[in-house]
């Protein structure tokens, strides 16, 4: 590894000679049916953190993919370190010093953490064979430097989403690039890990690395970014220092209108107990989970990543059924061995991992949206009632403001936040009575977020019982009637809305 001192010296030199390490001018990028970017500009200073803001589908990821050599722009220039460049491939960009952490995680499942990080750059021994011991040591050194605690020899498939995210970050850092792009790096991790990530970012920044940071979380912007650029519908709106503006200014720039309520919880009438869980356990994962859920109630589920929140949700829904304990729905003991069983009981689960258990990437938006609803009904004389379903899907598209040229577009061409909305629509179409949402607003922009919160409130008013897992405490606090906190597979408490606050939750979550 290059020593930090040399690196710093190089960076100081660069910093002095050039105000910007990267300058983008007049970029246009069109996809069939969509102008993703239109005459966009962007300037990046070395040794700074530059946030990109904009609604879902505004073109942020597309712009970053252009900088990382994944897409070629239709028009426009890219100047990197003062020279005009044409980036031919991601490898080309990487070799010039531009690394990117993708919005959708892109690690190879069946390889170890170390193999994933050093792929294409594996250390070799005298015979030219891969030196695994050295590779493990290098990974350990990298992890030590970043204070990451993950076993370098573990297979990626065995890691949690948050751990994978940390591996991605470490991998990008290991390239020692001048520009590091992070596309929603915190969407899969909790506040403690966010702090950890920010420490890493500050360290990189001090070493002269320029960081582009895409996020929908306003507080992160103020905490970590030096300046930010706003995009709207593929157009560049402006760049400002984050110290100069308020949250409302940014939102106005992003959406062109005012958004007042962040978490507009509307009171719902709490009805009878619909779901009653007793002593639910899955050895090695979670133990003794006991709670009641009433009609119209929103139960927040808080805890650190790895505390077993998602596992409980998956057990309730039969993805990985619990081995002990009872689940009672509307007073009746039920045995749930598969998601199909759970759906028969009127449950729905929006999973945490959009890519692994959510999207059918080769299929269209319409097909992705209707698949769960097909389980019961929507079939006429043996044929799927396409026309009826399309009408319902159109309504969902409007209600959630899903940005897509048409419903026959492949879901893989949608922006991350819009994919998430399609998945929410998928479950709403099943008309559940118990709705379990695991990180429902992951990757969703501020405006749409408020709308999704309103939607959840409305569902509760209609008597739907909701369990909501979220790593964003303000969201949990804002939306929930009660909050159940978990720590290392155990329930550490259930707080009432009136008594809950950030500190109390963190106390229970960290123990």
């Amino acid at each position: 590894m290059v020593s930090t001192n040399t690196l710093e010296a190089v960076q100081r030199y660069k910093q002095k000679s050039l105000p910007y390490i990267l300058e983008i001018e007049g970029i246009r990028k069109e996809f069939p049916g969509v102008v993703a970017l239109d005459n966009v500009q962007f300037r990046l200073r070395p040794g700074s953190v530059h946030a990109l803001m904009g609604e879902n589908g505004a073109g942020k990821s597309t712009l970053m993919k252009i900088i990382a050599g994944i897409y070629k722009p239709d028009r426009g220039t890219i100047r990197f370190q003062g020279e005009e460049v044409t980036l031919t491939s991601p490898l080309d960009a990487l070799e010039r010093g531009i690394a990117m952490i993708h919005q959708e995680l892109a690690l190879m499942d069946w390889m170890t953490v170390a193999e994933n990080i050093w792929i294409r750059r594996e250390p070799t021994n005298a015979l030219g064979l891969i030196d695994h011991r050295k590779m493990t040591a290098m990974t350990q050194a990298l992890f030590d430097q970043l204070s990451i605690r993950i076993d370098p020899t573990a297979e990626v498939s065995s890691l949690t989403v948050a751990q994978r995210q940390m591996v991605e970050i470490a991998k990008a850092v290991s390239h020692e690039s001048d520009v590091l792009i992070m596309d929603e790096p915190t969407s899969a991790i909790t506040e403690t890990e966010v702090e950890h990530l920010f420490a890493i970012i500050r360290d990189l920044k001090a070493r002269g690395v320029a960081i582009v940071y895409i996020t929908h979380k306003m507080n992160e912007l103020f905490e970590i970014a030096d300046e930010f650029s706003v995009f709207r519908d593929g157009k560049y709106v402006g760049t400002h220092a984050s110290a100069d503006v308020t949250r409302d200014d940014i939102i106005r720039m992003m959406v062109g209108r005012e958004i007042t309520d962040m978490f507009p919880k509307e009171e719902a009438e709490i009805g009878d107990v619909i779901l009653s869980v007793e002593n639910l356990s899955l050895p090695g994962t979670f133990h003794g989970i006991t709670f009641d859920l009433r009609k119209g109630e929103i139960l927040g589920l808080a805890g650190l990543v790895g505390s077993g929140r998602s596992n409980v949700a998956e057990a309730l829904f039969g993805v990985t059924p619990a081995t002990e304990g009872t689940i009672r729905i509307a007073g009746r003991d039920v045995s749930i061995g598969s998601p199909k069983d759970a759906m028969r009981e009127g449950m729905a689960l929006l999973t945490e991992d959009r890519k692994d258990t959510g999207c059918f990437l080769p299929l269209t938006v319409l097909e992705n949206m209707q698949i769960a609803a097909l389980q019961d009904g929507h079939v006429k004389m043996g044929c799927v009632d396409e026309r009826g379903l399309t009408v319902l899907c159109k309504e969902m598209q409007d209600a959630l403001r899903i940005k897509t040229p048409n419903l026959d577009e492949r879901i893989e061409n949608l922006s991350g936040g819009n994919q998430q909305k399609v998945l929410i629509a998928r479950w709403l179409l099943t008309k559940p009575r118990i709705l379990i949402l695991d990180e429902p607003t992951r990757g969703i922009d501020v405006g749409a977020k408020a709308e999704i919160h309103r939607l959840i409130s409305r569902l509760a008013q209609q008597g739907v019982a909701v369990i909501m897992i979220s790593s964003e405490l303000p969201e949990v606090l804002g939306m929930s009637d009660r909050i159940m906190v978990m720590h290392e597979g155990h329930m550490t408490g259930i707080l009432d809305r009136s008594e809950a606050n950030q500190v109390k939750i963190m106390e229970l979550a960290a123990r």
Partner: protein
Amino acid sequence: MENVQIEPVKRSRRSLPQELNILLVLVAVALVFEILGWLFQGQSFLMNSRRLTIMILQVSVVGIIAVGVTQVIITGGIDLSSGSVVAMTAMITMSVAQSSEFARAMYPALTDLPVIVPLAVGLGIGLLAGMINGALIAWTGIPPFIATLGMMVTARGIAKWYTKGQPISFPTDSFAAIGSGAAPVFIFLAVAVIFHFALRYTRYGKFTYAIGANPQAARVSGINVQRHLVKVYAIAGLLAGLAGIVTASRAATAQAGMGMMYELDAIAAAVIGGTSLSGGRGRIFGTVIGTLILGLMMSGFTFLRVDAFYQEIVKGIIIVAAVVADTFRQKARSKKA
């Protein structure tokens, strides 16, 4: 919120572009043979209805199999057993379809049976073979390649063992009628139409695509993935059984060597027709065109008196070229880099 700027979309229907491509290939192949025909044989290739009928007849059996194989490939699997299942069903079916006029019938007590019996036996055997494939894949989790490879070897073995290698002949007239004349073509087209609609417009079809696109997400969406896989492989087996019946009936005899390599032709037809080996994509209509392209090629080479060895070489190259072209097309669609 101001208007989201989305430019009007010109595409009218999503299915058109992809299938148009394959149709164009079909037309191009036909035209090439037409031109070569005038150049080297001094006659038209296409303006010969007899030749075209024979061509379609030749590929009908492979086509029937390909309809099943396409569905398997859409789930992200593969079926290598269909050719052997053709031989196995042909043998067993023929043994209960023999005419009493033949003195040395295999089961003298079971001659002159109504045609429904051999039909049911043949379809049943195909279905069973497919269900075994599916059950192995769904519940033991072994890769489809291995499970169906096992079935491929086993079924061929059963076909040989059944008569110790002897052919079985002399079917009843009614059984022989199944594959006579243009009947195989109609059977092929009927099967194709049924499953084209089943895949596009029924729950069965939607689930098939979903499983191929992302099996985990399919499970979470409430699909019983294992049971569905058994269904899909069972249908593929059933259609291979049907192909076996048609083959035996048409030839009026059954041999253990029948259906050799049909599985590969069927896979080729599906892939040429745009079915993606990585799952989640493919249409029966494309497979029908793919089958016709294969048939056109075979018939064209014969017409031009191209040596059989060259035929195979060229066929191999064309299959690979089709997949390469498809891969590029997919990339162009999704990446636009």
